[in-house]
């Protein structure tokens, strides 16, 4: 049986560890740039949807009811903010990591719970089981109740944010709000990808500069 030794300093192709690292940096740089451009493309289409829905809302509610004059100019904190941390495991990397905290102004715990809950839902989508329906229904109803309790503060914050345009707003305006929320999520992904790309670029650039100095 063949035993592969991962600790050897050189590889089959005759590449040294240094070259492998350089190639890995270049690949990471190219990957992050590709992901950056793909995400920007996705952002463009999400924003286009948002602008269209906003225009539809303005058409149905009237230009005077969806206007910048109505914006809230009294002192208030942002309901959606960012958590900025150093990148995990690399304290000296100088690579910031951004996390979006949506609707976290009024009840931080509830909304954070809401974020966690929604991420768990995404990870473990509910399965539909045949048979044992009673048990399943009981379980889903209790889960729905719990998710409604979690969603309530978020819904309240969403309505509060739209209240500057009146109490009865067009469903298109609510749809536009959700589109811009989705755009924000993509934006945070783009910002993280941007810092990854710049970090990889710096490493590749440093190697190039080093080579120039050697010669």
């Amino acid at each position, binding site marked *: 049986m063949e035993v592969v030794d991962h600790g050897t300093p050189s590889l089959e192709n005759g590449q040294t560890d240094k070259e492998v690292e350089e190639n890995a940096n270049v690949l990471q740089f190219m990957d992050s740039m590709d992901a950056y451009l793909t995400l920007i493309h996705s952002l463009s289409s999400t924003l286009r949807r948002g602008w269209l829905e906003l225009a539809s809302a303005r058409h149905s509610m009237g230009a005077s009811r969806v206007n910048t004059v109505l914006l809230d100019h009294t002192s208030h904190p942002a309901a959606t903010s960012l958590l900025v941390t150093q990148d995990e495991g690399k304290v000296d990397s100088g690579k910031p990591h*951004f996390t979006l905290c949506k609707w976290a102004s009024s009840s931080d715990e509830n909304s954070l719970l809401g974020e966690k809950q929604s991420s768990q839902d995404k990870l473990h989508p509910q399965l539909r089981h045949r048979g044992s329906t009673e048990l399943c229904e009981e379980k889903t109803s209790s889960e729905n109740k719990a998710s409604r309790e979690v969603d309530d503060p978020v819904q309240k914050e969403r309505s509060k944010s739209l209240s500057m345009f009146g109490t009865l707003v067009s469903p298109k305006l609510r749809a536009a709000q959700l589109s*811009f929320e989705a755009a924000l999520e993509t934006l945070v992904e783009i910002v993280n990808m941007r810092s990854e790309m710049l970090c990889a670029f710096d490493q590749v650039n440093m190697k190039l500069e080093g080579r120039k100095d050697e010669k």
Partner: protein
Amino acid sequence: MANRVQIPTSNSALIAMIADEDTVVGFLMAGVGNVDLRRKTNYLIVDSKTTVKQIEDTFKEFTTREDIAVVLISQYVANMIRFLVDSYNKPVPAILEIPSKDHPYDPAHDSVLSRVKYLFSAESVASGRR
């Protein structure tokens, strides 16, 4: 370069915007709007009456404020103050050029991509091989 700068960590940093009316209104509906006690906002709505000086001043203000982590700027607005945007190289606040309603995104103008474009030029590759 960017990776030698200490990153200021924050629990609730703001997203600032310099963009056209609909983009700003949309993101305000998503909850990013902040007005402090001195009634200073974290956004600037750019229209036909906005001067380049106003945009410059706002950009400088947003990039020096410690409570701001990301500055979103419409690409056509960034083109008006390109010299400022291109010379900015701190990791936080991060500057992000976004498309606007009337001006689609052009990667050729993006300040981040122009910074890394150097690696794709024939000159840099040739000097690496020599």
